[in-house]
C-alpha cells in the first residue's frame, strides 16, 4: 500500500465500532447533555476565571467581612464576602482551577496506574500478580491521611507557590499515590473474569498478541466497574484535599480550592452564614453529579445490550 496517496473515501456505509456507537448513543441522552453543560461550565470557570468575576480574590477589606449576599448575583459582592472581607464569588471562581486540576490529575493518574497494574496482574497472574497484589495490600493498610502527611512533610520547606503546578503538585502526588489501589482491584477482578472467556480464547487462537487481547477484549470489560467508582472518588479527592489544607499541607494560601472553602465554611455555617458552606458544596455536588451521570451513561453505552 502506498502511503503517498490520500485515503479514498469509504464506498460503503462507515463501519461502526463500539466507541463510535457509544458516542452516538450518548449524544442523544438529555441527562448526558445536562451533565456535559455543567462540566463545561465548571471547566470554563477553571480555565477563564475572569469571565465570571472582575474582583481579585486576594483584595480583602476587613470592614466588609461576612456580608451576606442579599443582592444575589448582582451588586458589589454577588455572593457576599467571606470572613476576611474577600469577595466570595471571586474566591470561589479562582478556587475552581486548582480544585479541578487537582481532582482530574489525581483521577487520571490513579485510573491509569490502577488499570495498567490491574490488567497486568489479572492477565499474567503468577509472580506479577503476587507482586502487584501485595503492593496493593501494603498501600491499603497505610491510612491515606498518615501517608499523605508523611509524604507532604517532604515539601514543607517550600515557600508560597507562585504557579498552578507548585500549588497542586504536592497534594496531587500524595493523593494519587494512595488512591490507585481501588482501581487495581476492580480492574484485576474484571480481567480475571474475562480472560478465560471463549472469545478471548478465540482471539488467542487467531494469533492475537497479549497487548491486543488486553486492549480490545479485556479493557472494555474492565472499564465498567471503574466508571462506577470514578465520580464518588472525584468527590472524595476534593474533600481529602481540604483535610490536607486544614493541616497546612494541601493547597497553600493565597491559592484556594473548594475543599478549603468547604472546611472554612463549616465554621461559619452554624452562625447564620450558611452560604459560605452551601455554595461550594452545591458546586461540588453538581460536579460530582455530572461526572456520575456521564460515567453511568458511558457504561450503558459501552454495553450494546443496554443501548
Amino acid at each position, binding site marked *: *500500500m502506498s502511503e503517498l496517496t490520500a485515503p*479514498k473515501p*469509504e464506498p*460503503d*456505509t462507515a*463501519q*461502526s*465500532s*463500539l466507541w463510535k*456507537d457509544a458516542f452516538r448513543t450518548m449524544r442523544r441522552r438529555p441527562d448526558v447533555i445536562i451533565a456535559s453543560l455543567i462540566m463545561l461550565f465548571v471547566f470554563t470557570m477553571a480555565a477563564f476565571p475572569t469571565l465570571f468575576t472582575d474582583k481579585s480574590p486576594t483584595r480583602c477589606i476587613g470592614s466588609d467581612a461576612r456580608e451576606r449576599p442579599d443582592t444575589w448575583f448582582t451588586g458589589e459582592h454577588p455572593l457576599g464576602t467571606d470572613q476576611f472581607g474577600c469577595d466570595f464569588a471571586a474566591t470561589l471562581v479562582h478556587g475552581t482551577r486548582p480544585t479541578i486540576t487537582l481532582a482530574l490529575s489525581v483521577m487520571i493518574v490513579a485510573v491509569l496506574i490502577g488499570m495498567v497494574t490491574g490488567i497486568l496482574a489479572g492477565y499474567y497472574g503468577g509472580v506479577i500478580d503476587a507482586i502487584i497484589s501485595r503492593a496493593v495490600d501494603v498501600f491499603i493498610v497505610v491510612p491515606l491521611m498518615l501517608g499523605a502527611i508523611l509524604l507532604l512533610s517532604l515539601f514543607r520547606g517550600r515557600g508560597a507557590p507562585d504557579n498552578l503546578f507548585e500549588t497542586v503538585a504536592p497534594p496531587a502526588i500524595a493523593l494519587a499515590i494512595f488512591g490507585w489501589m481501588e482501581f487495581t482491584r476492580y480492574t484485576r477482578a474484571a480481567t480475571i473474569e474475562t480472560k478465560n*472467556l*471463549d*472469545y478471548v*480464547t*478465540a*482471539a*488467542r*487462537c*487467531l*494469533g*492475537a*498478541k497479549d497487548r*491486543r487481547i488486553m486492549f*480490545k*477484549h479485556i479493557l*472494555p*470489560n474492565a472499564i465498567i466497574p471503574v466508571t462506577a467508582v470514578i465520580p464518588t472518588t472525584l468527590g472524595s479527592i476534593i474533600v481529602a484535599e481540604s483535610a490536607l489544607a486544614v493541616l497546612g499541607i494541601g493547597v497553600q494560601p493565597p491559592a484556594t480550592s473548594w475543599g478549603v472553602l468547604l472546611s472554612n465554611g463549616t465554621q461559619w455555617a452554624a452562625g447564620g452564614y450558611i452560604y459560605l458552606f452551601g455554595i461550594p458544596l452545591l458546586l461540588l455536588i453538581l460536579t460530582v453529579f455530572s461526572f456520575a451521570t456521564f460515567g453511568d451513561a458511558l457504561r450503558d453505552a*459501552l*454495553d*450494546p*445490550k443496554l443501548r
Partner: protein
Amino acid sequence: MNAELGQEHAAEPVLEARDLVKHFPVQRGIVFKRTVGHVQAVDGVDLELHAGKTLGVVGESGCGKSTLAKLLVGLEPPTSGSINLLGQEIGNLPQRKIRPHRRDIQLVFQDPYTSLNPRMTVGDIVAEPFAIHPGVVPKDKVTAEVKELLDLVGLSPDHVNRYPHQFSGGQRQRIGIARALALRPQILVCDEPVSALDVSIQGQVINLLERLRDELGLAYVFIAHDLSVVRHIADEVAVMYLGKIVERGTAAEIYDHPRHPYTQALLSAVPVPDPELRGRREEIILQGDVPSPINPPSGCRFRTRCWKATERCAEEVPSLDVGDNGTRPPVSHHHPNQPEGSTHPTACFYAEEKDVTHAVK
C-alpha cells in the same frame, strides 16, 4: 467405502498427531506450590486427518475431547508427542512461533453465546483475523472480504454493524464459523459446534459445515458427544475414553460393526427414532462413573466398568493394534460391506463385534 479409504491413506495427511500427551499438574499450597498429581487429560493419542475429510471424535464428558482440540490448534502446549500440521511440526514450538501456522488451523467453539465478544460488532469480529494478520488482505479490501465471508456462511452482509446479542444461536455460530474461515485455513477443529444449539438449528449448521467442506476443500476434526451428528458428517470416527482412543475406523465400521465394549455401550444408548422398535434392542448400561483422570485404572482404562474385564486387562495396556488379533477374517475388496469383514483398530484384548445400533423386530 473401505476400498476407497485404502487409497487415500497414500496421500500425506494434513494433520497428524503422534502419541499426543497432555497432563495438567494438580498443585497444592498457596505460596509454595507442590505438585500432588497430574490430570491425564490426553494420554497417548494418535490421529490422522486427510484433506477434505472429516474425523469425528466421540466420547463422554470429561474424556479429554476439548483438551485434544486445544492441543491440535496450538492453544495448549502438549506435554509430549508431536503434532504435524501440513508437514511441519508445531507441537514443540513456542506460542510466538506458532502464530504463522494459526492461519492453517482454526477452532470453532461450542458455545456461540460466549465465543463472540458482546462489545464488538459482527464486522469487527469477522475482521479481527485480518487485523491480527495484516498481510492477508489489503486494508481497503477488508470490508468487502468480511461481507463475502458473511455471505459464505449464509448471513446477510448488511449485518456487519450489528452486535452478537441481536442474533440467534444458530446465526451466532455462523458468525463464529465466518471468523474461523477468514484466514482460509485448511483445517477446522470443531469443538462440539452444535451441542449448544436447538435440534432444528443443528441440522442447518451441520449442512453449512458440509457445504463449506465441499466448496473450500476443508478438513474437519469434529468433536462431539452426539453420536448421530458425528455419524452424519464424519468419514472416520475415533472413540475416546479417559484420554485414550479406544477404537478407530470409518463411520460405517464404528457404527455398524463396533468392536470395543465401550463403543458398544455408547451406541446402545443412542435413542431409537422408531417408537415401534423401542425396547427391542439390547441396551448396555455401564455401572459406576468415569474414573478420575488424576488416578486412572491400570492397564485398560475401561476395565473398571467393563463386563469382559479379566486380570490381563489390569496388567497390560491394550494398544489399538491388539484388537486386530480377533477372529474375523481381514476385509476383502470384493465384499467391502461384508459384516464379518471389520478389523479396524480397537484397543481391547477381547474385541468382538456386536450389533447394538440396529433394533430388530
